[in-house]
């Protein structure tokens, strides 16, 4: 779309980047507000009410405050790693968002290997988390980072395996093609098991409760970002909520038919599905207690990985037998 507006590739890149950054910021502000409001409703409270209408400006106030906070670098920190970590955590998110077809004609980049790229960039974020944990020179942060990496490796496998069975159905890794293939029925109906595995894996990938062990507040203080203050901490927050949006976008694209839907315009459907999924993840968080680390790992390796493998094999066999 932008290609038609501007001829220059650099201008296009800059403009796209600005739009995505703007979207991510507003998205995070909105999601934090939504989470606080939703959790309040689950808990017989009101949530933010004072700043702006129904507290809508509360998260903006938080963000501005964090901007004006002192940035502390611990004396014994590994400074390059410590400073780079928030950037490494956040950058892949920006790339990730640019890959999704928001509407039939609304898409920043359309690549043949879009799906692969999404997962590849999602993996980079965890390097940032480990850098944060190691660089902080804090035992809690290090424990959190180690948990994060172990968890990421364990849950990325079922996540990708369940996504693979969708690519078998769609015969493409191009995200726009996958969405187009669901113009009549979403893949959720053909891949219910895959969708369930994906959802569980996605919650784990975003470090959300009940899989929030890398930053388990009651165990590891604040986990890998224990030592980060001010804006650096805000970037981690921003990345967490952006990651929630990204995994929901992947799920929407792979299983819920992307922008397809009756009556309403495509991008409205897309965002309804994305934010619906995010709300579901928030509901999880405010309902379940947290798993223990070894339970989390054994759940991934003994339940999710075999199940997703079986799902992939089953899909392949069924397709081989019945298609054409």
């Amino acid at each position, binding site marked *: 779309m932008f290609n038609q507006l501007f001829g220059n590739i650099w201008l296009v890149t800059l403009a796209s980047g600005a739009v995505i950054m703007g979207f991510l910021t507003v998205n995070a502000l909105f999601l934090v507000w939504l989470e606080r409001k939703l959790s309040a409703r689950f808990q*017989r409270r009101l949530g933010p009410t004072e700043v702006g209408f129904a507290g809508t400006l509360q998260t903006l106030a938080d963000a501005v405050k964090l901007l004006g906070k002192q940035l502390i670098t611990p004396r014994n920190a590994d400074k390059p790693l410590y400073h780079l970590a928030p950037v490494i955590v956040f950058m892949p998110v920006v790339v990730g968002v640019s890959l999704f077809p928001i509407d039939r004609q609304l898409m920043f980049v359309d690549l043949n290997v879009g799906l692969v790229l999404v997962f590849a960039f999602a993996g980079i974020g965890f390097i940032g988390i480990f850098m944060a944990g190691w660089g902080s020179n804090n*035992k809690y942060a290090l424990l959190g980072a180690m948990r994060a990496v172990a968890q990421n490796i364990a849950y990325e496998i079922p996540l990708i395996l369940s996504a693979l069975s969708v690519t078998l159905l769609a015969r493409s890794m191009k995200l726009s093609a996958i969405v187009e293939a669901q113009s009549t029925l979403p893949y959720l109906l053909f891949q219910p098991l895959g969708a369930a595995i994906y959802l569980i894996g996605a919650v784990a990938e975003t470090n959300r*409760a*009940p899989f929030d062990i890398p930053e388990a507040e*009651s*165990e590891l*203080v604040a986990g890998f970002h224990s030592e980060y203050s001010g804006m650096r901490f805000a970037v981690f927050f921003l990345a967490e909520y952006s990651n929630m949006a990204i995994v929901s976008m992947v799920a929407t694209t792979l299983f819920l038919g992307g922008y397809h839907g009756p009556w309403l315009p495509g991008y409205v459907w897309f965002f309804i599905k994305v934010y619906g999924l995010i709300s579901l993840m928030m509901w999880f968080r*405010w*309902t379940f207690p*947290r798993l223990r680390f070894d339970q989390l790992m054994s759940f991934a390796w003994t339940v999710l990985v075999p199940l997703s493998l079986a799902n992939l094999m089953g899909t392949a066999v069924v397709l081989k037998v019945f298609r054409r």
Partner: protein
Amino acid sequence: MPTRAKAGAVSERQHSKLGDAPLPETYHLNMGPQHPSMHGVLRLVLHLDGERILDVDPVIGYAHRAHEKMAEHRNYLMFLPNTSRVDYLSGMIYNLAYCQAVEKMLEIEVPERAEYIRVICSELNRISSHLLWFGTFLLDIGGITPFLYAFDDREQILEILDRVTGSRLTYCYGRFGGLTEDVDTTFLDQTRAFVKRLRERLPEYHALVTGNVIFRGRCEGVGVIDQHVALAYGVTGPCLRAAGIAFDVRRAEPYGIYDRFEFDIPTEQSGDALARYKVRVAEIEQSLRIIEQAVAQIPDGPIMPDKPKKRFKPAAGELYFAVESARGQFGIYIVSDGSEIPFRIKLRTPSFSNLAAMPAVLPQTTIADTIAIVGSIDVVIPEIDR
């Protein structure tokens, strides 16, 4: 911390239970005194191999407020406000226990009505303490919403007690011989309404928490305090009953008028965190039963003796008086030298002994289990430190 905190740092600890040789790949983790799960200011120095705990050294005293020294400086009446601040979660029980101990020393008769009110208030206080424990325990293992539900119900109790005692937490309701204020019918109505309300709410608690797979996974078989450990460390209260010993001071040496009420002593056999959870939730139900009976039977009459004493000067002697607080056996040991000021008051607090058992329970668990176990023990730090 002069050196890098790497997981590979070699331990220098000499007192390790695993022998004196330093272990490779182990390190120390300092948990507390400011840590979200240390219930205030408990500090645990954990000796870890990865996330596995090899040894634990609880460090206490961060909330030491010198109650026992203060007792040597004030007369019997002036020590009264201190008692509810020893364990602020069951302040009513502590406050009344001290009153009963001094009454026993001075041989003061307490009117019937005051005894009934004492039972009702104590049991309400016990429920509020258990509800708070329920919330914070779930918070420790990552469930945030049950915490708010429990606090919501707890506020009802605080409202009832606030109305008669004038305080939400640190009650000073008892006096030697009775109580400060009489209760009215509104109090009894509110109490009845609360019993009804909590009866309706308990199934919701079970639906949200007790049956949850994750919750069970976190608690089952975790932190087993068996009968042997309990006996060796003097563990009392719900932690002891979860190990299958039906020991409750209200039955073992009945005080006040507890021998008039019907109630069961809930026990579990497994001694793990889940058993402690079940025992406490069952105790809430038993406390509701006691409250119901007391509200039904409460007589009219005075709440203080006809001629209350003005000066409290017990004869020289010693007394040990025990009650069942929300956490276990709370004992007061008073030594009098015949003057108006106690020679010594020793407070035997249940969490002190319960927490002392941690070095026997925690090794070979993980950090996450530590949080669950300490949470399930239900410690109140100022009560340990006094």
